[in-house]
């Protein structure tokens, strides 16, 4: 059983940080419209998150897709749980489910 060594890093990141966004670029300079959209939602809600730039690390870029069984970037994790990519985050935000889920998990947001 030789697990991908990148998985260990991912597990650490998502357990040590409440909200983690695997993205292209950085929260300040996203390099993809879909990553930028998720950053926009999180920022609008006042959620503190750790952005991890997968463009800087080829092993991570491939590894995160395998770890999540999800072939695209961005990917949002909250309290270690995979929430989804851009479409899902956007839909959940629009329906209010995202705010509700963050609240249930004890993540602080700006009063909407």
């Amino acid at each position: 059983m030789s697990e991908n060594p990148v998985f260990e890093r991912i597990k650490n990141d998502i357990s040590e940080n409440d909200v983690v966004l695997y993205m292209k670029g950085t929260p300040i300079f996203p390099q993809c419209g879909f990553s930028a959209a998720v950053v926009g939602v999180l920022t609008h809600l006042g959620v503190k998150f750790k952005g991890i730039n997968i463009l800087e690390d080829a092993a991570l870029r491939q590894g995160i897709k395998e770890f999540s069984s999800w072939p695209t970037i961005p990917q949002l994790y909250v309290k270690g749980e995979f929430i989804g990519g851009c479409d899902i985050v956007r839909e959940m935000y629009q329906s209010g489910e995202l705010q509700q889920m963050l609240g249930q998990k004890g993540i602080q947001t700006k009063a909407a």
Partner: protein
Amino acid sequence: MRVADRIADKLNRRFAPAEVRVIDDSQRHHGHAGWREGGETHFKVEIVSSVFAGQSRVARQRLVYQALTEELAGPVHALELKTLTPEEAAGAKA
């Protein structure tokens, strides 16, 4: 066969959808990462199928991704998805 047609074809076979729309959105991403001359890199898919009933959003998208593994590994750089059950689609229109 155009990539959009190939996607529609695979989705039709896998999900027997009540509705499926595959939009080549490549022009809107002109010059972005993954874009190339000739398009066929960025797609938007809206699909209505009873296969999605009782499945979470993540599970639904995984099913679509699985059906399109080849395309995602090949020409398709980005895929926006909307996955609805027939009941949800009817509700959205009402």
